[in-house]
């Protein structure tokens, strides 16, 4: 009989390889690869930004030395501190506007007997899918003091002297940003309002509280976590928004951090080390707010609003229901109808002289921006259409594969790796596109992907794949782990289980996420503007190019083309993903 030691001694060499084999599984290889890809994609650009922020460029622009001058410039430069303050004011203003509009519209839609509310909801959400940059262009043509159509009509028909509206200032930036981000708050709140336990409000009503008091003291506090989450996301997104302040702010003396970062990164006042420092400042602000949303506010949502399938009481507004309808219609008018109509009218003119001239109208501008075979086509526009579709299709597909693996790791595996991945998925949300793009540019400029569509693809996926991951996670959480476990116990490999059990169950979430990313990529500007070069223009870069190098009618024509494509995607998204797909 052999001793236990001897037995262990003989077994030990045989077990070591099998332990290694058990570690090297399809699952572990895939998850390790995904972790490395995500970590590299997210952390490399940010680490590079941090390092770059301590480099000081010399006067020639060719050399640099280590120092803190860039951080001093954040405080003592004549423009940057003002840009910083403007950014905070714009973000705060847009957040307040979007919150007031978003909460009120959500309440009207979810809790009142406002006529046609079911039909109005898709229109309330349209601005979420459109480009805020295009919205800014449209509103400039609607409400520029001298040339805006609304002001012209006010002068002609109401006898107004001077102008009625002026969006070419910080208030215009707040207005356009606010109305375009209203759906973000709406989406965060409307789901909570629909799922609210009616007994809570009933108790208030039976104790004698009126509608207003019940709404203010019971309903709104109950959905407060949703409101705060939406508000923080609007604040962060507004701080990182580039297109609106570029069009309505910077030319009129209202620089923001994003317009300054752009100018310093690749713009006409280039010092990308200083740009990196400003990016760090902006990234730090947004990261703090995202952290608050993720760690403090979001968990509270589950303690105040139950997850049960309640159908809350519908509040009878009486005659006020028509006021509610009018309010909702006015929002749709200013956020969707007027901007699109205005762009279309402007796009039909050869040059925009500030008024409608019927005899000048034609579709010639569409020929220039759409018909790539036409000899007078504008390449930045036609290239942009092709490239955006390629990027949107490839980007959404790759991002969803990554999202699937990452979601699986986070929700189906336990331990440090999954927590780290969860954290890495939050990081890109905390950093505005323009900040992340700067990091990507600096990291990859010496590689073969510089000046190709690949670098744009990398930037897009890094910044936005958490959106897709969120969609997949939402569905994955609703699917019991036991289904996976049964498959594995029956002998199926991880890959087979994923292919035959998990993915089919996740299909709706995957497809909704894919379409959402497709739409986001089609209108993306902040990353593209930093990373594009000749031949790799995107749709939004095409619009930017036309703003800078052509005229308003051509800009409007491409903006309309982009809007039409996005609206078609919205319809498709609603059909596929359903009404509740985006609600928090």
């Amino acid at each position, binding site marked *: 009989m052999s001793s236990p030691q001897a037995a262990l001694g003989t077994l030990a060499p045989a077990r070591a390889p099998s332990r290694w084999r058990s570690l090297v599984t399809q699952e572990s290889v895939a998850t390790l690869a995904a972790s490395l890809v995500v970590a590299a994609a997210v952390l490399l650009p940010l680490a590079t930004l941090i390092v770059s922020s301590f480099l000081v460029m010399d006067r020639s622009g060719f050399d640099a030395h280590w120092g803190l001058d860039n951080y001093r410039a954040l405080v003592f430069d004549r423009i940057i501190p003002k840009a910083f303050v403007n950014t905070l004011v714009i973000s705060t203003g847009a957040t307040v506007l979007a919150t007031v509009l978003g909460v009120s519209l959500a309440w009207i839609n979810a809790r009142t007997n406002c006529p046609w509310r079911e039909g109005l909801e898709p229109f309330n959400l349209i601005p979420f899918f459109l480009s805020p940059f295009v919205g800014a262009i449209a509103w400039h043509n609607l409400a520029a003091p*001298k040339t805006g159509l609304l002001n012209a009509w006010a002068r002609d028909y109401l006898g107004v002297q001077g102008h009625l509206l002026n969006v070419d200032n910080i208030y215009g930036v707040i207005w356009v940003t606010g109305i375009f981000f209203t759906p973000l708050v709406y989406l965060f709140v409307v789901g909570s309002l629909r799922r609210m336990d009616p007994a809570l409000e009933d108790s208030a009503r039976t104790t004698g509280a009126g509608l207003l008091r019940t709404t203010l003291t019971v309903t709104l506090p109950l959905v407060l976590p949703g409101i705060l989450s939406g508000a923080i996301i609007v604040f962060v997104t507004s701080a990182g928004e580039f297109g609106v302040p570029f069009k309505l702010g910077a030319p009129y003396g209202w620089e923001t951090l994003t317009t300054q970062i752009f100018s310093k990164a690749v713009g006409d006042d280039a010092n990308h080390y200083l740009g990196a420092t400003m990016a760090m400042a902006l990234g730090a602000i947004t990261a703090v707010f995202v952290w608050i949303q993720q760690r403090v506010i979001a968990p509270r949502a589950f303690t105040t609003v139950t997850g049960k399938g309640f159908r809350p009481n519908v509040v009878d507004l009486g005659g006020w229901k028509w006021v509610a309808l009018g309010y909702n219609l006015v929002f749709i008018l200013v956020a969707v109808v007027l901007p699109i109509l205005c762009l279309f009218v402007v796009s039909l003119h050869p040059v925009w002289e500030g008024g409608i001239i019927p005899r000048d109208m034609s579709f010639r501008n569409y020929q220039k921006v759409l018909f790539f075979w036409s000899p007078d086509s504008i390449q930045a526009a036609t290239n942009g259409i092709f490239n955006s579709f390629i990027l949107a299709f490839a980007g959404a597909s790759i991002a969803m594969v990554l999202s699937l693996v990452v979601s699986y790791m986070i929700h189906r595996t336990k331990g440090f790796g999954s927590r780290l991945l969860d954290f890495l998925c939050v990081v890109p949300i905390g950093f505005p596109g323009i900040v992340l793009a700067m990091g990507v540019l600096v990291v990859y400029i*010496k590689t073969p992907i*510089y000046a190709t569509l690949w670098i744009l693809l990398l930037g897009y996926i890094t910044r936005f794949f958490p959106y897709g991951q969120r969609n997949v996670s939402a569905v994955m959480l609703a699917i019991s782990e036991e289904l996976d476990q049964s498959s594995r116990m029956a002998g199926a490999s991880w890959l087979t289980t994923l292919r035959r059990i998990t993915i089919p169950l996740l299909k709706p979430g995957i497809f909704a996420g894919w379409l959402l990313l497709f739409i986001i990529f089609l209108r993306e500007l902040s990353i593209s503007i930093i990373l594009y070069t000749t031949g790799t223009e995107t749709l939004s870069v095409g619009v930017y190019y036309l703003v800078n190098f052509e005229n308003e009618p051509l800009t409007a024509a491409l903006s309309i083309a982009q809007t039409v494509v996005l609206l078609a995607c919205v319809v498709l998204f609603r059909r596929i993903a359903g009404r509740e797909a985006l609600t928090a």
Partner: protein
Amino acid sequence: MSRPSGTRCFLVAGVALASALFASGAAGQAADLTPQERALIAAAKKEGEVTILNPLFSDETGQRLSEGFVKRYGLGPDFKVNNLRKGTGQTVAQVRQEIKAGRFTVDILLVSAPAFFDEAAKRDAFEKLDSAHWKNHEALARKAGQYFNYPYVVVPLAYTFQPVWNISCPGMANFKVDSYADTIGPALKGKTIASDITKSITYTNTALSLMEAGFDMKSFWGKLKATEPIVEFRTEPKMQMVVSCERPFDMWNLSGRVYQNVLKKPELANVLRVGYYKEGQVMLGNQAGVLKGAPHPNAGRLLVEFLLSKEGTDIVVETEATYSFMQGYTPPAKAKPYLLDLSQHKLLGLKDWVAADDRVKSVRDDWITTFK
């Protein structure tokens, strides 16, 4: 050895004739091609494309340059000319970034940025040119005090900022400019545009040239600020503001932009006006160089030759209303109404375009103090 038969002689002659015809067709048939141009054609054709980064050429100019270039040198229908347009500072920033990274996407940089070209040339960033056409430009460019650094950097064209306004806008019917004093009158309140000199090398150099000529720019900025101008820097959006009466007067724009808008709507010729400054017009030479390490260096050199040739110059002048330093050059008739007769105007420049870079920060700081 037998003598060739009659039929064979005929065949040989036919092949020779066909070859000659083919060769002349392939070479674009410009009988006036220089040996330097001929030496570059085959390599350029093999490279298949060329990219020029510049702040000026419109899509139409790019298209016409491409057609003219391909035709002159017989480069074939597949040859591609990429015209990449960005702001003056932005072009310099991109090229500087590419030089530092040693990774190039453009072949030629064409922009008015003497200090940058000088610094980059010191760092051996440009290919050596062997130009046959440069000799026709050099004397006038030197006389006009322009920066160049042949055989690395040449000056194919120049432009000057002029006052542009729209007489159809309210209060502008009798407006006229021939002095900087005319641009800051109280009647212009809310009608002006201040060109953002912090984002443009050419605006900054225009300001520096005026200062060197004794003009008090700092006090002028203050007076311009009093007119409550919009701050913008690209000439195209500024022109849009003038056309739409959003801001009917722009003190620094390009006559070429007026011309391009008139092409889109001919009636604009009746309302858009271009003036000049008696204090002096600053001539801003645009330097060009082929980047060392560029993906298409031979096509780049050939395109620079084309820009210096009469044919290339005609295209640029006709579409952009720019100026050329070519000896005895007569601009195309179409562009003439938009060009100043330089012999009738006081021309300004900088004594040392490269050294002037030392003063860029202070003049920009003054501007920022006033406008930001």
